[in-house]
């Protein structure tokens, strides 16, 4: 029913597929392990960038998983944090009406998202929402009382504080820093 050539072809094809899957898996192992365990050791510094990135660089901390929000952990070294201990679950990009715990938002940063936070009562919320609508897969937008400025933009290892809703500056931050770190530096 099957010819010799067909059999040889099927065999080769099967081998090729096995090799492809193995190769893909081998290349992914590091990220998989980090996805499951968090990043307990201090990750290396970000790669040098040829373009000037928006905001300021913040030292990247050891970022292990902690059991629950409120569990004791090593302190963050910025407000809001840009890396550090976080809970094992994450939060989807989108617009939220109440503040998101630091231990949770750090996990979104670890997935390459940008977190935009504003002080409740800030009058430029419509502009911030416009950005969140335009980048629905990248931005987590939420209010937060204890911010050092009216608006705070964070990405993994990166922070920018704004006094007003400057749409151009916010979009530059989002576009330049989204997906730069996803369980590891991408660029």
């Amino acid at each position: 029913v099957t010819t010799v050539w067909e059999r040889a072809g099927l065999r080769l094809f099967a081998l090729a597929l096995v090799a492809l899957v193995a190769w893909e898996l081998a290349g992914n192992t590091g990220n998989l392990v980090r996805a499951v365990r968090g990043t307990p050791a201090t990750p290396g510094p970000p790669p040098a960038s040829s373009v000037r990135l928006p905001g300021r660089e913040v030292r990247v901390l050891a970022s292990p998983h902690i059991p629950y929000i409120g569990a004791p952990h090593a302190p963050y070294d910025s407000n809001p944090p840009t890396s550090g201990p976080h809970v094992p679950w994450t939060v989807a990009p989108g617009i939220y009406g109440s503040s998101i715990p630091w231990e949770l938002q750090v996990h979104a940063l670890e997935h390459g998202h940008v977190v935009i936070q504003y002080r409740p009562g800030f009058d430029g919320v419509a502009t911030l929402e416009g950005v969140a609508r335009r980048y629905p897969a990248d931005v987590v937008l939420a209010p937060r009382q204890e911010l050092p400025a009216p608006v705070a933009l964070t990405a993994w290892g990166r922070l920018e504080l704004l006094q007003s809703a400057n749409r151009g500056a916010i979009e530059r931050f989002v576009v330049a820093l989204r997906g730069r770190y996803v369980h590891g530096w991408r660029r």
Partner: protein
Amino acid sequence: VKPRLKSFARVAAPGKIVFVRELGVEFELDDPSGAASALLPLLDGTRTSEELASELGSGVDDVEETIAALDARGLLEDASAEAPPGLDTDRHASNLAFFSTFASLGRSSFEFQQALAGATVLVLGAGGFGSSVLLSLAGLGVGRLRLVDVDRVERRNLSRQLLYREEDVGRAKVDTAVEELRSFNSSIEVEGVERWIRGPADVAGLLDQPPEVHLWANEACVAAGVPLVGGGVLWAQGILYSVDPGRSACRRCFPQESASVVGGERTNRATAPTAALTASLITLEVLRYLTGFAAPVAAGSVWTADAASGRVSRALSVARDPACPVCGAVAAQPAPPVTLRPLSVVEDGGEFIVGSAETGVFVSIPEVGVVALRALQAGQSVEDATATTSDWAGEHVNVAEFVETLRECGFVLDGAAPEDGEHSPVRAARVAAALFSRAAWCLYALLLAACCVVLALHRELWPDYEDVFYLANPTLSVVSFAATGVAITALHEGAHWLAARAAGVGARFSISRRSFLPVFETDLTKLWALPRERRYGPLLAGMAFNSVLLAAALGVRLAFEAGVSIPNGIVRFAAALVFLDVLGLGFQFLVFLRTDLYAVLVVAFGCRDLTRVNQLRLRQALWGLSPAQEAELADAHPTDVRVARWFSPLYLVGVAGLVYAFFVWFLPGTALGLGWLALTLSHSPVSGSAFLQTIPIALIVTLELAVPIAVVLVRRFRSVRA
């Protein structure tokens, strides 16, 4: 249900009872304990099984077991069955009495009569056979008769054409016959069509000429999936044949010489008795198809009734010709010759209890019987099921005999439409018809295409597993996400069910496992009773539902992006819906897991057992086959082999993709979930909210993992025990 014993003659013998219905038709019942003998006098149709048990002072289970054994032999009918409104029980008293011979606790004689009331029969030619056939059908109460003829009544017709009188000579036969039939039975619909036939597209005509009319009727019936019963008179023999499209040989499959003998004699030698006898044989065969009181006897064969010897016998039996230009394509489909009732199978101490909830008959069969049953339920023919079962058992298994046993148990629906469609409300059927109209299908296809375009143009709307956490609270996210997933799957299956109902067949739900994925299923086995083009709707209905939902969710996301004001929670939930729906639709493309699209593929290409042939081919290519498997592959249906040629590489890609998905998503996802749970449960204070909130998630993860593992273990355990 109040069982009543049919008044067959009874002969008591040591340890058993013999019932004699008529000469040569006897039923035996073993009764070593005398329990059945004690029960018989009480079976007068006034008591339920509980009442019988209390009267006899025995257990309800024992009584029901005896009743099931009696019913399996066709000895009981349900005295509490009521005639449906509108059924003229007086007019049809003798018809009902005839059907009561074949009635059981699960199917009353009224149901046979109702089947006739709902039936339509087209009669080609209102001459010698037509006259008697039409009068018989009207007498039986067939709801709608349509007769076709083009002749005028001639004096010579009056020798045998019982519908006409001397004063009708010169009138159109159609007009006269319609008048006569309406005055014979005013409760049925009779329609006359006066026209000539030019080819198979005009399926109508006279039985005697043009000579090709049998073949034209055959071609039209096979294409429409409608049984054809035909006949004629040669020199001194009445002829009967029938065609059960897709199941039996068709007229075109008959050998040339028999066809020319059967259809080639031109002088009309039909007399009143030979015409009426032949017409009666034809009408009884029609009755078999319409009510299923017995299986059709002349499907794919020719019966003769000899005027000289009085003998009625099968003269010729023709097998389906796979190369037949008329039914070759139909024959390539695994139309099940055996339609089984929905049956439950429960393991019980090495044996299996198989039963029908409808009829209440349960019997114990060995595992080999279950294998055969599964093969038949999967739509295999008796031959294929024999092969499958014999392969499993390692020796020849007589499945044909097994089917006879099933028939005796009342598990076989002989030609009768599956009964579970009867109580579906008319309104649901109407809604379903609108949901699965041609226009609706165009809409579903458009929506799916639109979703593809939107996803191609909007990378930011692609689903991501993060969408699970669309609420900042993980417990609420995971629990509501899992519930939504279950709801979507249930609605997907509901769409299959509804479309199957709209197509006029029943369907059943079940839950099982494909690879490492637990799945809901709708058993659409009965779709095989439909012509090919009507099977696609029920098969694709689930994906149509997913497409509509996906379009709605993507619409919400797009509108929000465009600035439309929508509550944020709904927008994030829409993302979760997109994720679930893309997953659901994508899953259907894994045809090697026997998904909806696999079923579509099998129907479209007319495959028999593609999965098995593909499995054998791959095994042959990768590590060789045993001689038995070589033989099985050599015997494989050519269509399966042809399709497997490109299906095998596709299958390998699918398996590779699944292995990849297993390692990249399933395993880390599970590890992540378990790691999270272990971390939270071991490190949070037991009375704290973090601990409590983790418990529902733990339950869901455990269920999702445990169900497939449990299924695998139970199967392994059973196979070890067997």
